[in-house]
Every structure is written in structure tokens, then in C-alpha cells.
């Protein structure tokens, strides 16, 4: 059985009200989203600004209430939980945000930040809490002595480690990662991505990974759902999606990513025009205003998300007739042999290196 099952999730926000409070306009932030997630796996929600990916992640935690649909976590219907049952559920599902500075209280020390969830859920007797905080800090590659410091004393990457540590404190089964590396520099980004993967292997965590960056998603996800204007347009296993993207929007997203490969040979799908407003989404298929393959049917009739036998689902009327995606896929080029050796030597050496700077330990856990 899946850890998380989401069925027909809908959330409309009121964008404008009349003088008497009657809603005049709605933003259809999430409009019929369904997916499921196995324990220990990673589902990525991908899409551009305003596609509803962050709203979905908040609905799953019931941080906001959905208008329709069901969310089942470990067999329980989340939407029927009362306040105390909901609090118990929050122990099992946590969230980390994009901006680690905004999500840590600047007036609390790291120790206090990590003790709070332990006390709130009464997980560890008060006498043992300090020890547990030290353990959690070590788990995310920080030194236990840093528990006395305040968030402003840390760099962005270290703050994100603290946010991850806080999420781990309650020993959750699911962590929602909402653009966890978007605000970080590339070298720090890879540390956090490696850490997330190692923690998953070690603790059997499931992730919902919300991101706009397909290269990061390819690195971390087992399954990918591509969202556009409140709906999922394509859903498949990650390997399958990156080898054979079927929806024109997924293809456009893939081809828009600049490759760190000068003179890369691939065709580009540059979408014309802007992302339509979610306040006033186009009728029919919501991608039709930007789709290079649009036909009349797309303008009137919204396509359903239909899966094939392998579980690769696409919401497009023309999915069978589209040209193959080969031309837009990046050629598997990779590094030259010398460079590959050099990068390997670089990583090998830094892994064993003693801690430098303000007490980052090697991010590699001691047991694997």
C-alpha cells in the first residue's frame, strides 16, 4: 500500500470579492490533482511559477484546507482528522522551505529550535533531549557544539541543514521539500542534495520534492509529476520521463534548460508568449495558448490524464501523433575521461578531508 494517496485535490482561492463579500473571481490554484507515493521514495512536483506545486504540498499537510478531494496517509483519511489527531499526523510528515533563514526563529538557538519539536510531541524525556539534539545535528553533518549558536551565525547551506535537522527531529515518514536548494550556491546545493539522498537511504524517508529545476529533479526523483496551471500534465517514473517525455509542455521545459555543454546539439522548443494567468486560465487544454501542436479540439476540450500499462500518464489529445522527442533530448555526453577522473579525484579527496570552516563535518554518514 502506498504511504500517501492523493485523489482529485482541488483548491480555489478567492481573488476578488464584491462590496458585500460575494466572491467574484477565483484563482484555480489546484484543480483535480491525483498521485500516490510509496514509502522511501521521492516524488517530484515540477512546474513554473504559479503552477500550483507549492499549494499541493501545503494541501497534503493540511496547512491549508482543500475544497475537494481526499488525502490518505498510511491508510488514514487526513481530511477527517480532528485537531489532536492532526497534531499526531504532523509528527509523521514535515516540510522544509526554500529560504532557511525565514523559517528559523532568529531569537532561538539551534538547540532550542531542535528541542521544541521533541518537547511538543513529548518524544524524548527532558533529561535526554540534549543528547538527542547532538545526535540529530551529527546526522545532518553539523557539530553538536553548534547547538548553542543562533541561526544568523550560519551560512545558507548550514541553515538549510538546521531546517532539515528540525524536520528529522520528530522521526517523520514523509518530508516535503519545497525548493530546498533553489536559494543556495551550486557547491552548497550539491552538499544538501547528497545529504537528502543519504538520509533517505538511511532512514527510509519518503520525499515530495517541489522544484522548478529539472536537472535537480532528475538527480533526486523516483517519480515525476509535471504540473501546469493547477493540473498534472504528465506523470511517469523519472527515468522514463527523461528518456521519453510525451507532453509538449514537459518537452518544452526539458529543452529550455541550458546545458553546461557548449555547442550542445539539440533542437530547442522555445515557447512563445507568457505563462497564462491562473486567474483566467485558457479554456480546454490549459497549455493550448503556448503549445506548438495545438488543434481546434485542444481549445475546447480539456484532455484527461491517461496512463499506459507502464504507468506513464499524459494529458494530451495528440499524444499518439506527436513527433518523437529524440531531437530535444540532451545527448549523453558527460565529461571527457580526464575530467571524469579529475572530478572523481576531487570528490574522493574532499570526503576524507578534516572539517574546515565553521564546523561542517563530512556530510557522509558513518554507516551506510
Amino acid at each position, binding site marked *: 500500500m502506498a504511504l500517501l494517496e492523493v485523489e482529485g485535490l482541488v483548491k480555489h482561492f478567492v481573488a476578488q470579492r464584491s462590496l458585500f463579500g460575494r466572491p467574484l473571481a477565483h484563482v484555480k490554484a489546484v484543480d483535480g490533482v491525483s498521485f500516490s507515493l510509496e514509502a522511501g521514495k521521492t516524488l517530484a512536483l515540477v512546474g513554473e511559477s504559479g503552477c500550483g506545486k507549492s499549494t499541493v504540498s501545503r494541501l497534503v499537510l493540511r496547512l491549508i484546507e482543500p475544497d475537494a478531494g481526499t488525502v490518505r496517509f498510511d491508510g488514514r483519511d487526513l481530511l477527517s482528522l480532528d485537531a489532536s489527531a492532526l497534531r499526531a499526523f504532523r509528527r509523521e510528515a514535515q516540510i522544509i522551505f526554500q529560504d532557511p533563514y525565514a523559517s528559523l526563529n532568529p531569537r532561538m538557538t539551534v538547540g532550542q529550535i531542535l528541542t521544541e519539536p521533541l518537547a511538543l510531541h513529548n518524544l524524548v524525556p527532558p533529561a535526554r533531549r540534549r543528547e538527542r539534539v547532538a545526535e540529530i545535528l551529527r546526522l545532518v553533518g553539523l557539530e553538536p557544539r553548534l547547538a548553542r549558536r543562533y541561526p544568523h551565525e550560519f*551560512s545558507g547551506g548550514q541553515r538549510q541543514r538546521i531546517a532539515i535537522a528540525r524536520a528529522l527531529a520528530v522521526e517523520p515518514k514523509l518530508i516535503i521539500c519545497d525548493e530546498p536548494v533553489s536559494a543556495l550556491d*551550486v557547491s552548497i546545493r550539491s552538499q544538501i542534495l547528497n545529504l537528502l539522498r543519504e538520509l533517505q537511504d538511511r532512514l527510509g524517508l519518503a520525499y515530495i520534492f517541489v522544484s522548478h529545476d529539472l*536537472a535537480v529533479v532528475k538527480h533526486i526523483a523516483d517519480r515525476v509529476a509535471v504540473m501546469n496551471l493547477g493540473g498534472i500534465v504528465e506523470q511517469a517514473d523519472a527515468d522514463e520521463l527523461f528518456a521519453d517525455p510525451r507532453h509538449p509542455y514537459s518537452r*518544452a521545459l526539458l529543452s*529550455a534548460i*541550458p546545458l553546461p555543454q557548449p555547442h550542445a546539439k539539440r533542437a530547442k522548443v522555445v515557447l512563445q508568449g507568457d*505563462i497564462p494567468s491562473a486567474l483566467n486560465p485558457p479554456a480546454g487544454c490549459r497549455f493550448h495558448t503556448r503549445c506548438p501542436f495545438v488543434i481546434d479540439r485542444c481549445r475546447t476540450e480539456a484532455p484527461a490524464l491517461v496512463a499506459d500499462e507502464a504507468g506513464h500518464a499524459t494529458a494530451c489529445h495528440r499524444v499518439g501523433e506527436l513527433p518523437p522527442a529524440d531531437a530535444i533530448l540532451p545527448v549523453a555526453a558527460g*565529461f571527457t575521461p580526464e575530467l571524469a577522473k579529475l572530478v572523481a579525484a576531487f570528490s574522493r579527496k574532499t570526503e576524507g578531508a578534516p572539517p574546515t*570552516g565553521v564546523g561542517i563535518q563530512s556530510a557522509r554518514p558513518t554507516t551506510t
Partner: protein
Amino acid sequence: MSASPLIEIRDLRIRFHGDDGRVTHAVDSVDLSIANGATLGLVGESGCGKSVTSLAIMGLLPKQTTEISGAIRFDGFDLLKTPDQTLRDLRGNRLAMIFQEPMTSLNPSFTIGDQIIETILRHRGGSRRSARDRATELLRRVHIPSPERRIDEYPHKLSGGMRQRVMIAMALACDPQLLIADEPTTALDVTLQAQILELMRELKAASGAAIILITHDLGVVAEVCDEVAVMYAGEIVERAPVDELFSAPQHPYTVGLLGSIPRLDHRAEQLATIEGMVPNMAQPPAGCRFAARCPFVLDACTRAPPPLVEVSPGHLSRCIRAPLERLVS
């Protein structure tokens, strides 16, 4: 490099004096030259000095707290010694800049047309009517749909991608010889980024202006630039033609950067990481600034600052262990 570069930076050093008397070394001994029509990528992580370098070119650093030495030669001027009046004539005219966040660079209380026309009238003069025609033409050049109508709109009515197009139109208003683009696509979604990059390539081919593109995204560099300078802790650590930088990097920091990006074109089980932190620039280390984080470090690295030397023709590295191929063969 052609015989006479368009802009030549010699031994640029920039120090900031803080309120508490602390001196931060933001940029140190930077040498750069850019030929007409070339596109140079300036790459590095937050705080490496890439934006400060570009602000120094534009003369936009605060005078009271900044100490600048060296020379920036542009078309017979030394920009560091040019009086403000002359600089104002150059900026927006022959030197132009695009910033990351178009909303904060546009004035919300004037229409986009007014703001472009102001630039044209300031530098080119002429009638308001002809300036307006030129502004419409510029908006068309950056592919803004129905420019005759859009020209009278206020910035808040435009989407992020459109605003960045307006910024580019404004920068191009007087056909600049040098265009500095500071993270021009970082705030945009990928599909819009692809449009803007396409536009930049198109304009580069059409105008022949030299471009300095500042970015942290190596993918963007690979797509647009001819040449790349990698900055770390205020210094240029490597400079190379774009193909060479990606196929045979000669500084360990560049190797680490290339290894740490997740890629679409091949999958790595484990990404490379650069352990440790950027040095405190109030007291930069005596030797190589990357030494503390470098897996290939030797004793000699920490003793004296390594010079930027040519490893192969046109390829410079600030690493005494270059060529790095020797380390793995």
C-alpha cells in the same frame, strides 16, 4: 584577443570600509580585457566579487566607503578617473547594464515608454516624437507584442519576462558598445529564460556589442558566452575559451563546480561537493584563497599567492598545480 580590446581592466582592487573600521577585500588584482563583439561570462558564487567588478566598470560604487585602485580603460577613458559628468554621458549611452530584478530597476510611477524615451532624449536629443518612434521600434526588437499599445503601460502591468525585455530595450536604446548583464535570467522561469537567452543571442549577432554576462549558472554560460572568467573570493582563478573551460578546466575550484551541478546529460550517483567555506575577506589568506577547501593542496599553496599563468594558449589558471591532468594520470 584582437589588437585593441574594447575594454581593458588592469589590476583592479576594490576594498570596502565598513562602519566598524573593518576592511573587506571585495576584488583583488583583476585583469580582464574584452574585444569588440565578444561575450565574456563572469562566473562565481555569491560574494565572489563578480557584481562588484561590474559596478566598478559602471562607476556605481559608493564613493565614500569604497577604495578602488587600478585602471579600467574604455575607448580612451580611464573610467576610474573620469569625472562624474562624463560618466553620466557614457552610462546608458555607450555603457549599459541590465540587472537581475527588473521590477526594482524600473520606476513604477512612469510608463515604460517614458522611461525609454528619457534615455534617448538624454543622450541623443531630438524631438520627443522621434524618440517615441525609436522606443516603439526597440520594444518591437525585443519581441514585445503590440508595442504601440504596450509603450503606454506601467511596469506593474507587465509580467516578469516582459519587464526584463523592457530593461533590455532600454539598455539598447543608444546602441551601447558594452552591455553588462547581471544575472539577467535568474529571476525568471525556465521557459522565459530560454526566450531571453535566445533574444540575447539574436541581439549579439545583430548589434556587435560586447557583452559581460554575470551569472552563477554554468549552463547559461555554455549557451551564450565565447569566453569565461571564473571568480573566487575576489580573484579571477581561471580564464578560458568556453569549450576549454568545460572540457579541460585547469583550476580545482572549476573542477569542483563542474562536478557539483546535477546534469540532464548524465547521471552521477554522488555529486561532488566543495567542503568548507569561502574565506573571511576581511583577512584574506596569505596564500591561495582556495587552499583551505582544495583537495589537491600542497604546502607551497598556503605560503604565497599563486599568479595567474597561461597553461595553454588563451587558457589561464591561478593554480600552481596546473595542468591538472598530471594529477590523475
